[in-house]
Structures are given as structure tokens and as C-alpha cells.
């Protein structure tokens, strides 16, 4: 039956292509079990709610930088943390000064600002052909400094409808709605031809160019998509924080990048997946949750650092082993790749 064999071979090649998701999924399973053992409260409605709220900003931040990572080359966007902080300050302090506090207006401004920042970066990267990591490094410094100049001390309070997202107790909260909306948006976007072209451009820019893909619009498009999610992540972050803080958001850079790698993304371009980003972000959150259940006292944050760094390195090693990029001809890699020889 040709249809059946075609279906099975399609399924097999699909499964083979998901090797990058093995690491974050396995990690998620391990961490989830650990978390459930250590803190049974996680499995209650309250616990899930708290988990959602705590993990939501990182989730959206990671999803945001995924597109740029796909677009390649060296697609690490270091500016995500300060960008979220800037939009946070805008939402809490600056926009209310101009009378903008309603939900639709705030969403629009946040997303608009996110897009503006990203497109600025995108134009430099596209026209000057400079790698993303270096431009985002410059933008990180500019924004981080600017944020502190704009708001030297934490303060202010978020608009009413946003202010108590962090203290929500019902499951069906705005947090959940925003998350679901973001996921739906991502799924829709990832099915467009633009997204496919972004992936192809990230995988091999010169092939894309020679085949007629317009590199500059595609790259700007990638940054627009990223900008949208940067705006959404900033709104979520502001909702949780309830106020404005000039420096607290910068840690999201490290968290999001780590989550991205944990999610199986290759910084070379063309490989990252949205599902991987989500899993990676949840892994990051679970690490701090699990570690929080131990009583480390003063050293709690240090243990999180150790664990995050350690897991990151291990995840990279495992990913390399599975993809057989260099570490010999591992049996696991062969199994997954169907025994093709180089």
C-alpha cells in the first residue's frame, strides 16, 4: 500500500527531524517529576496557576528571541532583557503621563515599541551584514544604560487592569489568556511562507539569495515577529512585577538565551523551534522551582546559577551527541538518523 508506506516514511522523517526536542523534553520530564516529589503543591490548581504566572515572562521572552535565532547567523539577541525593561518603564511611568492606560492602547504601544526596537536592530543587521549577537550587545548596553537614566529607582505602579496579574488566583486569568493568545499567534505565524523563508535564510543564506528569496525583507520580517513577542513578554513581565524596575529585567537575557539553547536551538540558524523554546523556558523555571524547595538559605540564588549553567552545558553536550556533530558516531545518533553514514 503506497499510501501507508508513504505515511509511515513521512512520520519517520518527521520524528527524525525532532531530535532537537529530545533534550528539553527529557529534561522537562525529569524536572517535573522532581518538582512534583519535592513540592506536591505544584499539582494543585493553585500550584499550576502560580507556575504559569511565574514562568510566563520567560516563556514569552524565549519565544520572542526564537525567531531571531532561526534567522541566523549567530542569532543570539542579547537585548531582550533591557528591551523588556524599557517597555516596562514605558507602560508604568511614561505612557500614563500621556494618558495611555487602557488595555488595547497599552498592548498596541508595547508591541509597537517592541517592533521599533527590533526593526532598528534588523535594519543594521540586514544592511550592514553584521552578526546579530554583536549588534544586540551594543543595544543591550544602550538600553540598559538608558533605562537607569530614565528611571534611577524602582517605583510606580502598573495600570489597574495590569497591576494584579501577579496575584491572580483563578486559573482562567488574563495571564492564561495572554499566553494562549500568544501561542495561537505563534502557530499562525509559523505557518506562513515568510516564516519558512526565514528558516531557509537562516539555514543557508546564500542558497536563499541565489534562489530568489529577498533577504532584506525576510530579515526585517523576522525582527517584526520578534518585536511583537517582545511587546507581549514585556506586558506579561509588567503584569507580574506590578511596577517599574530599571534593572530587574536584565536577567531575562540570560534566562531566555539559556532556555533557547535548552530548547535545542542551534545558534547557527534555521533550526530553532517554537515548541523547543517553550519547553526550554519551562525547564528553566522548573530548575529554580525545584531548587527553591530545598532549603539553601543564603545560597539559594547561587545554586540556581550553578544548576542553570550546569544544565546548559550538559544539554549542549547531549545535543551534540545526538546530532553527531563531532563526538564520534554515537549509537543513539545513528539510531535516530537511520544509520546513514557520512
Amino acid at each position: 500500500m503506497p499510501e501507508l508506506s508513504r505515511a509511515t516514511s513521512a512520520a519517520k522523517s518527521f520524528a527524525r527531524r525532532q531530535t532537537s526536542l529530545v533534550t528539553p523534553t527529557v529534561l522537562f520530564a525529569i524536572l517535573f517529576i522532581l518538582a512534583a516529589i519535592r513540592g506536591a503543591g505544584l499539582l494543585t490548581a493553585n500550584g499550576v496557576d502560580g507556575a504559569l504566572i511565574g514562568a510566563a515572562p520567560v516563556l514569552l521572552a524565549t519565544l520572542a528571541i526564537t525567531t531571531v535565532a532561526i534567522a541566523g547567523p549567530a542569532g543570539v539577541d542579547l537585548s531582550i532583557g533591557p528591551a523588556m525593561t524599557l517597555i516596562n518603564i514605558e507602560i508604568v511611568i511614561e505612557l500614563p503621563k500621556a494618558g495611555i492606560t487602557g488595555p488595547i492602547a497599552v498592548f498596541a504601544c508595547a508591541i509597537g515599541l517592541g517592533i521599533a526596537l527590533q526593526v532598528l536592530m534588523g535594519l543594521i543587521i540586514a544592511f550592514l551584514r553584521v552578526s546579530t549577537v554583536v549588534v544586540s550587545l551594543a543595544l543591550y548596553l544602550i538600553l540598559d544604560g538608558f533605562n537607569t537614566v530614565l528611571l534611577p529607582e524602582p517605583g510606580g505602579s502598573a495600570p489597574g487592569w495590569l497591576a494584579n496579574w501577579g496575584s491572580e488566583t483563578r486559573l482562567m486569568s488574563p495571564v492564561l489568556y495572554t499566553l494562549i493568545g500568544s501561542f495561537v499567534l505563534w502557530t499562525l505565524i509559523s505557518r506562513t511562507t515568510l516564516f519558512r523563508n526565514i528558516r531557509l535564510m537562516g539555514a543557508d543564506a546564500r542558497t536563499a539569495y541565489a534562489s530568489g528569496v529577498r533577504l532584506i525583507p525576510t530579515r526585517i520580517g523576522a525582527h517584526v515577529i520578534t518585536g511583537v513577542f517582545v511587546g507581549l513578554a514585556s506586558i506579561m513581565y509588567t503584569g507580574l512585577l506590578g511596577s517599574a524596575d530599571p534593572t530587574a529585567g536584565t536577567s531575562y537575557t540570560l534566562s531566555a538565551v539559556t532556555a533557547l539553547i535548552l530548547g535545542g536551538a542551534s545558534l547557527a540558524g534555521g533550526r530553532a523551534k517554537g515548541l523547543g523554546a517553550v519547553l526550554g523556558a519551562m525547564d528553566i523555571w522548573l530548575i529554580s522551582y525545584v531548587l527553591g524547595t530545598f532549603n539553601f538559605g543564603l545560597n539559594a540564588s547561587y545554586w540556581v546559577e550553578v544548576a542553570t549553567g550546569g544544565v546548559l552545558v550538559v544539554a549542549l553536550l547531549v545535543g551534540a551527541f545526538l546530532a553527531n556533530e563531532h563526538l564520534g558516531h554515537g549509537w543513539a545518533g545513528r539510531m535516530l538518523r537511520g544509520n546513514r553514514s557520512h
Partner: protein
Amino acid sequence: MEEYLLAFKQPASTLRYSAVQRSDFEPVERTGSAVTVVPQPVATLPQVGTEAVTVRDVCKSFGATAALRNCSFTAHSGEIHAVVGENGSGKSTLAKVLGGVLAPDSGVVEIVGLTPTSPVSAQKIGVAVVFQEILLADNASVLDNLYLGQDGLFRAKTSRRNKRTDAAELLNRLVGTRVDLDQEVQALTLNVRQWIVIARALLRKPKVIVFDESTAALDYESVERFFEEARRLRDEGVCVLIVTHRISELTGFCDRATVLQDGTNVGTLKGEEIVEKRLLELMSSKTVVEANEEPEPPVTGSRIAQETSEERLTVSGLKLSSKARPIDLAFRTGEIVGLAGLEGQGQVKFIRAVTGITRPASGRIQVRRQTSAQTIGSARSADRAGIAYVTGDRKAEAVFPNLSVLENFGILGYRRGARFGFINRRQVKDTYNHQVEDLSIRVGRASASINSLSGGNQQKIVIGRALAATPVILALNDPTRGVDIGAKHYLHELLRRLAEQGMTVLFLSNEIEEFIGLCDRVVVFREDAVFDTLVDEQIRGETILAAMFGYAEQSAKPDDPVQ
């Protein structure tokens, strides 16, 4: 002629292919299989015979190198037009200019009256170029690669289902077997990969199609199908440009052939004028002078007679892959041994194993000098044993674009000649000057960037640095790639001279003609093992080719069925 007209009387949906030549030649008939064809609406193609491609006085330079010099040439729709020339003649640059990838510095390029300024505009105009380098996105599927660049910004131009049907029909026909459209291309063989980029161009239904060295990566049967496809396109009114340096393929196939040399058009041949002899004459019309300027390396006496030569390199029980047959070979001093084979049949693996670059599955490689025997296990041990490696793929494996000519030369010997870690600059400079003189390398300042040298001279630097280590064995992997005809001859003479002085030379090449007159024997590889060894009079084009396909010299029957 009648058969030719008959073909068009058939209904468009099913065509029996009769690839009949134009009336100028003796009719050669070849029939393909009945296939379904997506009919090309004739109205969109320019009338057969009109000028489709106009190139007028085009110049293109890269830094100091001029790739195209006042190049002018025209091609018509409904013809197969070959663009011929040696490496460095500018033909690939011309292809890139036609495809909109490169903009000419001056001059006019027109395709059906319009100028391509980018790959996007070129496609809108109706040009498709299959570049020399096989451009595929490795972790994308075959289907995605086939339609790469065709979709608009947000929506696809054709539905996915239609894409599949069209792609499947075309690709399966071209490749000859069914290709899974969803698998990632990186798992496929070179032959299929080449077909995919060709199919990608065909799916665009272009008015002008340019093939840059597209037959190089195709296997033997595929080349035949390629020619059929080219004829079919020609018959439909497409202007087919075939850029190649393999002139033997062209006889009896193309309608016209333009010869490029040093970036200019030195002449166009028509119809039955297209024979190897005339093409060669045109191709070397300029370099005859240059070749005469290349000094002949001094020929010192005759070859070391077989009796006085000794065994230098022994290979015992070498398995290049776990399932391959073991290889036992011995190489003597003063020998030039050719290594041949179809793509991926083990000759490259062999040379890499001998030079220690990769480790074979099992076996032993030994170098004998006077009394001692050294086993090769790594590139360093090979170097210490006296094996030197020269590669033709300079850009990938040999040249450092960020370093000067002198440093590119010296880097191989720095560690060897270092004193307490410090480079022995005097020694490096002396050796450099010696080799530059010996090999007649045309170079300005030693401190200039390596990029200021021509391809041939860069290759000489690579060879010179290998020779500076005074090896006893020289292993060359396709060394004449991208090198002009004068430098190629010089290299052959150099190898002869080195062999006379006692060096053992292993010479891997993809051009069968190079072995003739140069090698004492030719070892042909199949399936990662030695298939046959040809000596003396056996070294002819046909016999080597036959061996590559599995027809051993000793027996008349093929060794294993040719797939």
C-alpha cells in the same frame, strides 16, 4: 527531419522522446521513455531564433583580478549554446552575471530585452541559473528546496498539493527513481542533490536556463538524461546555455559553442564546427604564448629503472570502511600512480588514510626508508614519515585568506623549524625564495596578501610548501582544479621531474585524460576497495572509464552488475 516534426504531432500530454539532432549532423537517434509532461505554453516563450541573451562589452573585476574583459556574446532562444573555457576564463562569472547575482562593472546584459539586477529580478525576467556550487538548504526537505524562493512574502504562489505533484513528476523522471519529497536533503547522494537544483530551475519554467558545470556531479546515466532534458528544453524554445570545460561532451550535442578565454569571447563555433580539436585551438589561442613563457622544469635524466627502485609505501589489509574489501598495495620510489574512481568510490578516502588525515577502519600503512619502517596513524606521523599532502580544494583546505603569501607558505614548516617555540624566520625566507624560484611562482612582495595571487600561483605556493618539507612521498588530491592549462602542464612536468629524482607520487584526479602519459599505473577504486590496476598501454581513456564502471581489464564481464 521527419522524425523531428513527428514528435510535435503527438498530443501534448504524452510525448515519445526522439532526440533528433539538427539536420547539419548525421542523425543520431535516441529514444527516452514515455513520460507525462507539464506542457509549456508556447505563447510565453520568445520565438525560436530570436536573440534571448545579449551580453555586450561586459567587464567585471574582483579587486586586481579581471574575470570578464569586454566580453560580448549572444544566444538565441530554441538553441543549446555551450560556453566553454578553462578554469579562470570567466564562464562562471558570466553565469552569475546572467543570473543577477553579480552586477557587471560596465557593459550591457540583456535577457529578452531586460537587465537582471538581482536573483529576484532575474527570475521575474525568466532566467534560471544552476550554479556550479550545489546550493541546497541542508536541513530543509526536498520539496522546500525545490520551491525555494518561489513563494511570495505571505502566501505561496501554488498550493502545496500542486507543488507536490509537479515536483514528483519532474524529479522522479530526472533522477530515474522515486525520491521522497519530505526527507532532508543532507541525507541524499551528490547525484540526487544536483538533480534537485536542476529541477528547481526547471520548475520555474524559465525562458533562459544556464547550467554551470551541471554534469560534474551527475553519475553516468544521469548525464544522458541531462542531455535529453536539454534537448527537450531546446525544442520547446528555451535558450539553453551550458557552461562547461568538458569539451568531449559537447560534440554532436550543441548548436553553437562560444569559447571564453581570459574573460573575453575568442570565437563562436556553429554546428559541425564544434569538435574538440577546434575548441581546444580556440581555448589555447592565447595561452600558447603564456605556456611558452612558463619555463620547463629541468629534465634530469631518465626514470629510475624499475630494478633499482625500492618499495617506499606499503598498504596492508587496509579497509576504508567496515564492510569494504581489504586493500594491499605497494608503491615504489620513482613511481607516479594515478588514483581514479567514480564519485565516492573510495579513492579520496584512500588518499586521506595514507596521509593520516582520517583513520581507516583497519589496516596498516607503512613508509620504508632504508632500514626503518614507520607506521602512519595521524597527519603528524605521516608528516614525520615524509608524506606530503597537496589538495586541489585550496579554498577549503589549503589557503589562509587572512595571511600573506610568505605565511601561507611557511605555516606548514613553522613548528618543525622552530627554536624554543620561536619561528626561524631566516630559514623560512630562504626556503620560500628557493621554492619560488624552483617552481617559477609569479609573486610580488612576499608580505602581500595571498589573495593577490592567481589560482595557479596559489596552487604553486601550496605545492612549494609541501615540497619544502623534503618529503619522499607526495600525495595530490585533484591538484589541477581551478588551474589554467599552462599551470596544469607545468605541474605534470614537475611531477615527472620529482619522480625521476626518486619521489613516490600519488595522483588523484577526476579528469581521466590527466592520467594518460603521466602515470606509470592507475589504480581504480570501486566501493572503497581497489577494483583494478591499469599499467602501460592499458592506461587509456576508455579502459579507465570502463574500470570505473566495473569492467575489469582482465575479464570481459563486468565485476558486478552496473546499477
